[in-house]
């Protein structure tokens, strides 16, 4: 089982390291469906991150299985049935730790780059 999991993860996109965090961050604002998440990520990153639905929906499954998200079928505003994802309490904790981790790394890289420059 673990073997299989690691296989799937190895197959995901280059932004793998950050995709999970981006999803969790997006969902921390409000519950959303798949396309909603994709659009929000794209908008906020000003088009830097484009999310492929295959990767996104797989990542959502993974996060749901990890217990960080809850999923529920609901009506959208244009009364279409859609699967909405909500951040759970463990998901929130995960987001916090990932954010802290990311910030630490990013600032370290930034310092390095500055020193080089």
């Amino acid at each position: 089982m673990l073997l299989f999991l690691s296989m799937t993860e190895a197959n995901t996109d280059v932004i793998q390291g950050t995709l999970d965090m981006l999803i969790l961050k997006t969902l921390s604002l409000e519950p959303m469906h798949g396309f909603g998440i994709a659009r929000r990520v794209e908008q906020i990153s000003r088009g830097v991150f484009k999310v492929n639905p295959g990767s996104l929906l797989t990542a959502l499954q993974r996060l749901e299985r990890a217990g960080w998200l809850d999923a529920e079928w609901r009506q959208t505003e244009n009364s279409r049935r859609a699967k909405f994802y909500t951040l759970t309490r463990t998901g929130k904790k995960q987001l916090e730790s990932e954010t802290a981790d990311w910030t630490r790394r990013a600032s370290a890289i930034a310092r390095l780059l500055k020193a080089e420059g």
Partner: protein
Amino acid sequence: MFLWRQLGYGLRNLAHRTKREREVAEEVEQYFEEAEAAWRARGLSAEEARRAARLEAGTMTAAKERVNLYGWENAVRSFAGDLGFAGRQLRKHPVFTATATLTLALGIGANTAIFTVVQSVLLAPLPYQEANRLAVLNTHWTNSGRTSPRVTGLDGVDVREQARSLEAVSLYSGGTLGVQLHDHSVYTELTFVDANFARVFSLQPVAGRLLTDGDAHRAALVSEQFARDNFGGAQAALGQMLHVENEPLEIAGVLPAAFDFPAKTQVWAAYPMRPESQSRTAFNYKAVGRLRAGVSFQTAQSELDGISRRLEMAYPDANRHKQILTLPLEKAVTGNVRPTLLLLWATVGLILLIACVNVTHLQLVRSMERQREIAIRKALGSSGWQVMRPVILESLLVSVLGGLAGVLLAFPAVHALVAMAPKELPRAEEIHLNGWVLVFTLGLAVLTALVSSLLPALRAARVDPAGALKYDASRGMTRHGAAKLRDGLVIAEVSATFVLTMGAGLLLHTMMTLAARDVGYETRPLLVVDADAPAHTEADSHRAVEQFNGLFTQLAAVPGVKHVAGIMGLPMGNYGSNGYYKTRGGLPVESGHDASSDFSVASPGYFETMEIPLKRGRDFNGQDTYESPFVAVISESLAKQSFGDADPVGKQIQCGLDSDKWMTVVGVVGDVRQDSPAENPGPTLYMPMTQHPFFGNQIHIVLRTEVKPLALMNTVKEKIAGVNPFIALRFTTMDAMVNKSLAVERFRAALITSFAGVGLLLAMLGVYGTMAYSVAQRTFEFGIRMAFGAEKGAILHTVLEHAAKLACYGIATGLVLSLLLARLVTSMLVGVRPTDPVSVGVAALLLLLTALAAAFVPGWKATHADPMAALRAE
């Protein structure tokens, strides 16, 4: 937590697969709809919006597939799919499936059965408390290298008192004895034990109490079985009286039915802690002990070495070169059967190997048939692992089927094995299939699957699509590598079978040699009565001998009886003795190396009854009484050993059996093989019963009959009961005793022979399979040759010649292997050398014939290849 959730999701998805797929589909569709809607909102037309969404996000199908693939359950599902495919393939090829399953069932069944015995007898701990701390003491002579499983009473006591590594040491002795109950007597395994015995084994009685030192010669313990059989139950047995050798013993306690040491003992009679035999040269006792917790056998042994050295200094005569050895009880109990069981294990291992080769073979043939299929799958992009997987799964399935069938076969096989096993097989009642055996079988099944599918799977992985699609064997084109591989497998199989057959041949030849051997007396028809007359005092013994002499006269008068005699020391009998003797006027002996001999005590007429030839002098007669000068009869070997070519009659001889009076040699008789036909004839010293009454109350009565010996049983029983109803009796025939003494050899030979039979059957199947396959492949070639006028004989000859060639290679390899392995069985051969030409010849011939017979049917088919049909098949 995480694992549970993963498991939950996965299982739910496995159970409701379509539901999940539907949900994924809906989610993906909704995503794309939203995406299109977003594009439309930016002002694109419906058509343009759809294209833009596709351009950005790929196709819906790809996304669905990707999402659906997530989760461990998909690996399970694809495995189940492959397994189902393998199952369907097997069902489509019933002949292949049945042959392979049966072959493996035979191999795995034989292995399971033998492993059951090996596990129960050799591997499972003895059924005693902390059995790994139980030890036995042996006496070893460092100069001669000889080891006796016994100790002298005084050596035993010294070890008990001095060895700190042993928590308790118990001395015991005994054997089969008559036990007198209130109205009758029974023959029982009886052991005299000291008060330490129960401590050594940490025994708890089921009723009553254990023995104390004060119980010596007064009390006894009995087994639960004995209590039930004779008194109706454990409680009822308490306080009852037994008589052993005319000594009254009260039953003080009952031991649990599961306790069985020494093997089959029913009565444990109390002996004093201080042994009665005050000697350091009479090996009257066996000794068991319990190691102190945490002490290893090595530590104990080095302590015993020190004690042995001290004893050697203190008693330079008696204890010279003597070393007390300690070894695990387990080894002492099972040591004798270990080589036989290991041999059997190796044999069934070989059978399994042959079975594996056969299955490999069948698999290869199958995988060659589907080479085109594999080639196509590879051409379409399957990886090596993907094409290997069905091959391996198929063999796994076949092996599991074979394993199940094997376990089913093993049940009756174990039953038959135990029934066939010689009485000497220790722990026979503990043998049963259990969890360990099933784990072993499962492991074996998986192993055979791997071994037998290795070659076919590798070949499948190596298939070169272009090449395989070009070749087509049915059109007369064969790939040489494939044929060579199959030939190699047949050769391997034949050589393994040769080793088996050769082994069986050697053991059978040994059996035949033993059965045909001159044992020194005539075994048929001879009724043997074990008779134990109770005697305790010297007067008792004299009376018993007198009674027996009267009995012999009465029995001789029974119609159908030719001769009657009594003997202590019957060949293969229960009672016997041996030891050193001295002569006057004989050859000189080195000091400290007295000549030794078997001792027998016989009544007049014994040699005549047994038909042991009297070579010189006379037999015992009525004039040889306790009061008259002591006389002896010696065997030819003894005469040669001590008197050389001189006439021994009239010479003086003395032994320490029961009196040190000098005896005059009055006769010389032929040698006998004392312990079994496998033994060499050796020196025996015969003494008259009347002069050695202490050894004259436990005897065998032998009756040379004119009718079937056992037909006289009832008459003889009545006559003896008429004289003394307290004589414990048991009946058998000399023939049966000889047979029994060869039980181990027979067991071994019978098993190995039947395994060799199975091996031959498998080899035959193997050769048949190859030949049938290659003939089928060459039908086209044969058709053409026939069309050009080839003789049928010539074609048959081609096929048979091929088979014979393979068989000869196999036999040659097998012969080399047998010679290398021969030393493993040397100790089991009697009168036959490991290179026995008869066995080699028979085995070689048998294998050649088997190979030819197996090749004949396909060969005959080849000669009936219809040229037109073969060509039209194009």
